[in-house]
Protein backbone atom coordinates (compact mmCIF):
# COMPACT_ATOMS: atom_id res chain seq x y z
CA UNK A 1 0.00 0.00 0.00
CA UNK A 2 1.03 3.62 -0.41
CA UNK A 3 1.00 6.64 1.90
CA UNK A 4 -2.09 7.74 -0.04
CA UNK A 5 -3.89 4.51 0.95
CA UNK A 6 -2.98 5.04 4.60
CA UNK A 7 -4.40 8.58 4.52
CA UNK A 8 -7.65 7.33 2.92
CA UNK A 9 -8.08 4.47 5.38
CA UNK A 10 -7.21 6.25 8.62
CA UNK A 11 -9.22 9.39 7.99
CA UNK A 12 -6.49 11.35 9.80
CA UNK A 13 -5.75 15.03 9.14
CA UNK A 14 -2.90 15.68 6.73
CA UNK A 15 -0.50 18.11 8.40
CA UNK A 16 2.20 17.82 5.76
CA UNK A 17 1.58 16.20 2.40
CA UNK A 18 4.85 14.74 1.22
CA UNK A 19 5.37 12.06 -1.39
CA UNK A 20 2.12 10.10 -1.00
CA UNK A 21 3.10 7.57 -3.65
CA UNK A 22 5.72 6.10 -1.33
CA UNK A 23 5.18 2.48 -0.39
CA UNK A 24 4.32 1.59 3.18
CA UNK A 25 5.52 -1.89 3.99
CA UNK A 26 5.32 -2.15 7.78
CA UNK A 27 4.49 -0.25 10.94
CA UNK A 28 6.29 0.82 14.10
CA UNK A 29 4.87 2.36 17.27
CA UNK A 30 7.28 4.02 19.71
CA UNK A 31 8.09 7.37 21.35
CA UNK A 32 11.73 6.82 22.20
CA UNK A 33 13.60 8.25 19.23
CA UNK A 34 16.72 6.18 19.79
CA UNK A 35 14.63 3.01 19.78
CA UNK A 36 13.08 4.02 16.45
CA UNK A 37 16.55 4.59 14.98
CA UNK A 38 17.62 1.16 16.15
CA UNK A 39 14.52 -0.89 15.37
CA UNK A 40 12.12 0.63 12.83
CA UNK A 41 12.29 -0.75 9.31
CA UNK A 42 12.57 1.47 6.24
CA UNK A 43 9.16 1.96 4.63
CA UNK A 44 7.36 1.93 7.99
CA UNK A 45 4.38 3.95 9.07
CA UNK A 46 5.60 5.38 12.40
CA UNK A 47 2.99 5.92 15.09
CA UNK A 48 4.07 8.28 17.90
CA UNK A 49 3.07 11.08 20.25
CA UNK A 50 6.43 12.83 19.80
CA UNK A 51 6.24 16.21 18.07
CA UNK A 52 9.83 17.41 18.27
CA UNK A 53 11.80 18.44 15.18
CA UNK A 54 14.06 15.41 15.73
CA UNK A 55 11.13 13.20 14.71
CA UNK A 56 11.65 14.37 11.15
CA UNK A 57 15.41 13.82 11.24
CA UNK A 58 14.93 10.31 12.64
CA UNK A 59 12.20 9.53 10.09
CA UNK A 60 14.43 10.69 7.22
CA UNK A 61 17.35 8.72 8.54
CA UNK A 62 15.39 5.48 8.93
CA UNK A 63 13.44 5.94 5.70
CA UNK A 64 10.01 6.14 7.35
CA UNK A 65 7.24 6.55 4.75
CA UNK A 66 4.68 8.35 6.91
CA UNK A 67 4.53 9.65 10.50
CA UNK A 68 1.22 9.53 12.36
CA UNK A 69 1.13 11.84 15.38
CA UNK A 70 -1.55 10.68 17.82
CA UNK A 71 -3.71 11.96 20.68
CA UNK A 72 -4.59 15.18 18.86
CA UNK A 73 -1.04 16.48 19.26
CA UNK A 74 0.46 18.79 16.68
CA UNK A 75 4.07 19.13 15.59
CA UNK A 76 6.12 22.21 16.33
CA UNK A 77 6.47 24.61 13.39
CA UNK A 78 10.12 23.76 12.70
CA UNK A 79 9.17 20.08 12.50
CA UNK A 80 6.48 20.89 9.92
CA UNK A 81 9.00 22.90 7.86
CA UNK A 82 11.57 20.12 7.94
CA UNK A 83 8.99 17.51 6.98
CA UNK A 84 7.99 19.56 3.93
CA UNK A 85 11.66 19.78 2.90
CA UNK A 86 12.07 16.02 3.27
CA UNK A 87 8.78 15.34 1.36
CA UNK A 88 7.68 13.38 4.41
CA UNK A 89 3.96 13.02 5.06
CA UNK A 90 2.80 13.84 8.60
CA UNK A 91 -0.70 12.88 9.72
CA UNK A 92 -2.51 14.00 12.87
CA UNK A 93 -4.91 11.60 14.54
CA UNK A 94 -7.14 12.18 17.55
CA UNK A 95 -6.90 8.49 18.36
CA UNK A 96 -4.38 6.90 20.71
CA UNK A 97 -1.25 5.19 19.45
CA UNK A 98 -2.98 1.92 20.31
CA UNK A 99 -6.05 2.49 18.16
CA UNK A 100 -4.06 3.92 15.25
CA UNK A 101 -1.68 0.95 15.35
CA UNK A 102 -4.67 -1.41 15.47
CA UNK A 103 -6.19 0.18 12.39
CA UNK A 104 -2.90 -0.11 10.50
CA UNK A 105 -2.63 -3.74 11.53
CA UNK A 106 -6.13 -4.47 10.26
CA UNK A 107 -5.16 -2.77 6.99
CA UNK A 108 -2.56 -5.48 6.60
CA UNK A 109 0.61 -3.75 7.80
CA UNK A 110 2.70 -6.15 9.86
Amino acid sequence: MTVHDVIESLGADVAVEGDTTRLVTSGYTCDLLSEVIAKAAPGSAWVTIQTHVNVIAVAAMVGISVVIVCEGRTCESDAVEHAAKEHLTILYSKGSAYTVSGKLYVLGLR
Partner: protein
Amino acid sequence: MLEVPGDLHLHSCLSPCADITMLPGEVTERLVARGIRVASLTDHNAACNVPAFQRVFQRDGILLVPGMEATTAEEVHLLCYFETTGALWKFGRRLLASYPRIVNDPERFGYQLVCNDRDEFVGQFPFLLSVASLLSLEELRGLVEQLGGVVVPSHLDRRFGLLYQLGMVTSDMEFPTYEIAHKANVEKIAAQLPGHPQFVSNSDAHNLDSISPPRYVLEIEELSVHEVLMALRHENGRGARLL
Protein backbone atom coordinates in the same frame (compact mmCIF):
# COMPACT_ATOMS: atom_id res chain seq x y z
CA MET B 1 28.27 33.20 52.78
CA LEU B 2 28.72 34.36 49.17
CA GLU B 3 25.76 34.63 46.80
CA VAL B 4 27.09 33.83 43.35
CA PRO B 5 24.96 34.15 40.17
CA GLY B 6 25.19 30.94 38.16
CA ASP B 7 24.26 29.47 34.82
CA LEU B 8 25.07 25.79 34.87
CA HIS B 9 23.42 24.72 31.62
CA LEU B 10 24.88 26.01 28.36
CA HIS B 11 25.39 24.36 24.98
CA SER B 12 28.19 25.01 22.52
CA CYS B 13 28.51 24.41 18.78
CA LEU B 14 29.24 20.78 19.68
CA SER B 15 25.56 20.10 20.43
CA PRO B 16 23.82 19.35 17.12
CA CYS B 17 20.77 21.38 18.17
CA ALA B 18 22.81 24.46 19.16
CA ASP B 19 23.79 27.42 17.00
CA ILE B 20 27.28 27.33 15.50
CA THR B 21 27.91 30.78 16.99
CA MET B 22 28.03 29.23 20.48
CA LEU B 23 31.80 29.67 20.73
CA PRO B 24 33.82 30.31 23.89
CA GLY B 25 34.67 33.98 23.24
CA GLU B 26 31.13 34.89 22.19
CA VAL B 27 29.47 33.00 25.04
CA THR B 28 31.88 34.35 27.67
CA GLU B 29 31.36 37.94 26.56
CA ARG B 30 27.62 37.56 27.16
CA LEU B 31 28.00 35.73 30.47
CA VAL B 32 30.25 38.53 31.74
CA ALA B 33 27.76 41.17 30.55
CA ARG B 34 24.95 39.36 32.40
CA GLY B 35 26.96 39.15 35.62
CA ILE B 36 27.28 35.34 35.68
CA ARG B 37 30.23 34.19 37.84
CA VAL B 38 29.89 30.40 37.74
CA ALA B 39 29.01 28.56 34.54
CA SER B 40 29.02 25.08 33.08
CA LEU B 41 29.26 23.97 29.48
CA THR B 42 26.87 21.03 29.30
CA ASP B 43 26.79 19.68 25.77
CA HIS B 44 24.76 16.61 24.91
CA ASN B 45 26.69 13.43 25.72
CA ALA B 46 30.18 14.82 25.00
CA ALA B 47 32.60 17.32 26.52
CA CYS B 48 35.08 18.03 23.71
CA ASN B 49 34.65 21.79 23.98
CA VAL B 50 35.13 22.02 27.75
CA PRO B 51 38.92 22.73 27.56
CA ALA B 52 38.45 25.67 25.17
CA PHE B 53 35.63 27.14 27.26
CA GLN B 54 37.56 26.59 30.48
CA ARG B 55 40.50 28.63 29.19
CA VAL B 56 38.35 31.53 28.07
CA PHE B 57 36.19 31.48 31.20
CA GLN B 58 39.32 31.54 33.34
CA ARG B 59 40.72 34.52 31.43
CA ASP B 60 37.51 36.48 32.10
CA GLY B 61 37.06 35.44 35.73
CA ILE B 62 34.24 32.93 35.37
CA LEU B 63 34.51 29.65 37.27
CA LEU B 64 33.85 26.61 35.05
CA VAL B 65 32.14 23.61 36.60
CA PRO B 66 33.07 20.53 34.52
CA GLY B 67 29.80 19.17 33.18
CA MET B 68 27.75 17.42 30.53
CA GLU B 69 24.07 16.85 29.76
CA ALA B 70 23.71 13.09 29.45
CA THR B 71 20.73 11.24 27.95
CA THR B 72 19.60 8.12 29.79
CA ALA B 73 18.07 5.04 28.14
CA GLU B 74 14.65 6.49 29.03
CA GLU B 75 15.62 9.65 27.08
CA VAL B 76 15.71 11.65 30.29
CA HIS B 77 18.21 14.51 30.23
CA LEU B 78 20.49 14.73 33.29
CA LEU B 79 22.96 17.48 34.07
CA CYS B 80 26.10 15.81 35.40
CA TYR B 81 28.72 17.88 37.24
CA PHE B 82 32.19 16.86 38.38
CA GLU B 83 34.85 18.13 40.72
CA THR B 84 37.60 17.91 38.06
CA THR B 85 37.88 17.68 34.28
CA GLY B 86 39.68 14.36 34.87
CA ALA B 87 36.50 12.89 36.37
CA LEU B 88 34.51 14.37 33.47
CA TRP B 89 36.76 12.64 30.91
CA LYS B 90 36.36 9.32 32.73
CA PHE B 91 32.61 9.77 32.65
CA GLY B 92 32.70 10.81 28.98
CA ARG B 93 34.58 7.66 28.02
CA ARG B 94 32.14 5.42 29.87
CA LEU B 95 29.20 7.20 28.30
CA LEU B 96 30.67 7.03 24.79
CA ALA B 97 31.04 3.27 25.22
CA SER B 98 27.36 3.04 26.15
CA TYR B 99 25.65 4.70 23.22
CA PRO B 100 24.89 3.56 19.71
CA ARG B 101 27.46 4.68 17.13
CA ILE B 102 25.38 6.41 14.51
CA VAL B 103 27.35 8.56 12.10
CA ASN B 104 25.96 12.09 12.31
CA ASP B 105 24.31 13.56 9.23
CA PRO B 106 24.89 17.30 9.87
CA GLU B 107 22.33 18.36 7.27
CA ARG B 108 19.59 16.56 9.19
CA PHE B 109 20.56 16.72 12.85
CA GLY B 110 22.94 19.70 12.86
CA TYR B 111 26.70 20.22 12.98
CA GLN B 112 28.72 18.95 15.94
CA LEU B 113 31.72 21.24 15.92
CA VAL B 114 34.81 21.09 18.10
CA CYS B 115 36.39 24.50 18.69
CA ASN B 116 39.52 26.00 20.21
CA ASP B 117 39.83 28.96 22.60
CA ARG B 118 40.18 31.39 19.66
CA ASP B 119 36.63 30.66 18.45
CA GLU B 120 37.93 28.59 15.53
CA PHE B 121 36.41 25.28 14.42
CA VAL B 122 39.00 22.53 14.59
CA GLY B 123 36.95 19.42 13.90
CA GLN B 124 33.63 17.61 13.93
CA PHE B 125 32.43 14.96 16.35
CA PRO B 126 31.58 11.99 14.11
CA PHE B 127 28.84 10.16 16.02
CA LEU B 128 25.34 11.54 16.53
CA LEU B 129 25.14 13.09 20.01
CA SER B 130 21.36 13.42 20.27
CA VAL B 131 20.99 9.73 21.00
CA ALA B 132 20.17 7.94 24.23
CA SER B 133 22.74 6.02 26.21
CA LEU B 134 22.02 2.38 26.94
CA LEU B 135 22.52 3.23 30.65
CA SER B 136 19.35 3.64 32.68
CA LEU B 137 18.72 6.68 34.84
CA GLU B 138 19.83 4.80 37.95
CA GLU B 139 22.94 3.39 36.26
CA LEU B 140 23.96 6.77 34.93
CA ARG B 141 23.40 8.45 38.27
CA GLY B 142 25.42 5.71 39.97
CA LEU B 143 28.29 6.25 37.56
CA VAL B 144 28.36 10.02 38.14
CA GLU B 145 28.23 9.65 41.92
CA GLN B 146 30.91 6.96 41.89
CA LEU B 147 33.15 9.55 40.19
CA GLY B 148 32.35 12.08 42.93
CA GLY B 149 29.91 14.05 40.78
CA VAL B 150 26.38 15.39 41.23
CA VAL B 151 23.32 14.83 39.03
CA VAL B 152 20.69 17.54 38.52
CA PRO B 153 17.75 16.42 36.35
CA SER B 154 17.28 18.90 33.48
CA HIS B 155 14.20 21.10 32.90
CA LEU B 156 11.61 19.09 34.83
CA ASP B 157 8.82 21.11 33.29
CA ARG B 158 9.77 20.36 29.66
CA ARG B 159 10.20 17.59 27.12
CA PHE B 160 13.11 15.24 27.92
CA GLY B 161 12.77 16.24 31.58
CA LEU B 162 12.45 13.50 34.19
CA LEU B 163 8.77 14.18 34.94
CA TYR B 164 7.80 14.50 31.28
CA GLN B 165 9.50 11.25 30.24
CA LEU B 166 8.74 9.07 33.26
CA GLY B 167 5.53 10.66 34.55
CA MET B 168 6.55 10.77 38.22
CA VAL B 169 9.49 10.85 40.60
CA THR B 170 9.25 8.23 43.32
CA SER B 171 10.91 8.60 46.71
CA ASP B 172 13.59 6.03 45.85
CA MET B 173 14.92 8.24 43.06
CA GLU B 174 14.72 11.72 44.52
CA PHE B 175 17.44 14.30 43.85
CA PRO B 176 18.60 17.18 46.08
CA THR B 177 18.34 19.72 43.23
CA TYR B 178 16.24 19.89 40.09
CA GLU B 179 16.36 22.29 37.18
CA ILE B 180 13.18 23.97 36.00
CA ALA B 181 12.87 25.87 32.72
CA HIS B 182 10.40 28.45 34.03
CA LYS B 183 10.35 29.79 37.57
CA ALA B 184 6.57 30.20 37.34
CA ASN B 185 6.27 26.40 37.36
CA VAL B 186 8.15 25.88 40.61
CA GLU B 187 5.18 25.29 42.94
CA LYS B 188 3.35 23.02 40.52
CA ILE B 189 6.51 20.96 40.01
CA ALA B 190 7.47 20.87 43.71
CA ALA B 191 4.04 19.43 44.54
CA GLN B 192 4.80 16.45 42.30
CA LEU B 193 8.14 15.64 43.91
CA PRO B 194 9.05 13.68 47.03
CA GLY B 195 11.01 15.35 49.85
CA HIS B 196 11.97 19.00 49.95
CA PRO B 197 14.18 19.62 46.93
CA GLN B 198 15.71 22.90 45.86
CA PHE B 199 15.55 24.31 42.35
CA VAL B 200 17.85 26.02 39.91
CA SER B 201 16.82 27.60 36.62
CA ASN B 202 19.50 27.88 33.95
CA SER B 203 19.37 29.45 30.51
CA ASP B 204 19.88 26.12 28.64
CA ALA B 205 21.14 28.48 25.93
CA HIS B 206 21.41 26.99 22.45
CA ASN B 207 22.05 30.42 20.89
CA LEU B 208 23.74 33.61 22.07
CA ASP B 209 20.51 35.58 22.57
CA SER B 210 19.21 32.99 25.05
CA ILE B 211 22.01 33.64 27.54
CA SER B 212 19.92 35.26 30.24
CA PRO B 213 20.51 37.36 33.34
CA PRO B 214 20.99 35.20 36.46
CA ARG B 215 17.87 33.40 37.62
CA TYR B 216 19.36 32.06 40.86
CA VAL B 217 22.35 32.41 43.15
CA LEU B 218 24.52 29.73 44.66
CA GLU B 219 25.07 30.21 48.38
CA ILE B 220 28.65 29.12 48.93
CA GLU B 221 31.62 29.91 51.22
CA GLU B 222 34.09 30.57 48.41
CA LEU B 223 34.24 30.48 44.63
CA SER B 224 35.32 26.89 43.94
CA VAL B 225 33.94 23.87 42.09
CA HIS B 226 33.95 21.92 45.35
CA GLU B 227 31.69 24.53 46.97
CA VAL B 228 29.34 24.59 43.94
CA LEU B 229 28.93 20.82 44.09
CA MET B 230 28.16 21.07 47.81
CA ALA B 231 25.48 23.66 46.98
CA LEU B 232 23.98 21.32 44.36
CA ARG B 233 23.98 18.50 46.93
CA HIS B 234 22.29 20.98 49.28
CA GLU B 235 24.67 20.09 52.11
CA ASN B 236 26.71 21.81 54.83
CA GLY B 237 24.53 24.91 54.68
CA ARG B 238 25.27 25.47 50.99
CA GLY B 239 22.43 25.72 48.50
CA ALA B 240 20.76 27.51 45.63
CA ARG B 241 18.15 30.27 45.79
CA LEU B 242 15.90 31.27 42.89
CA LEU B 243 15.78 35.00 42.25
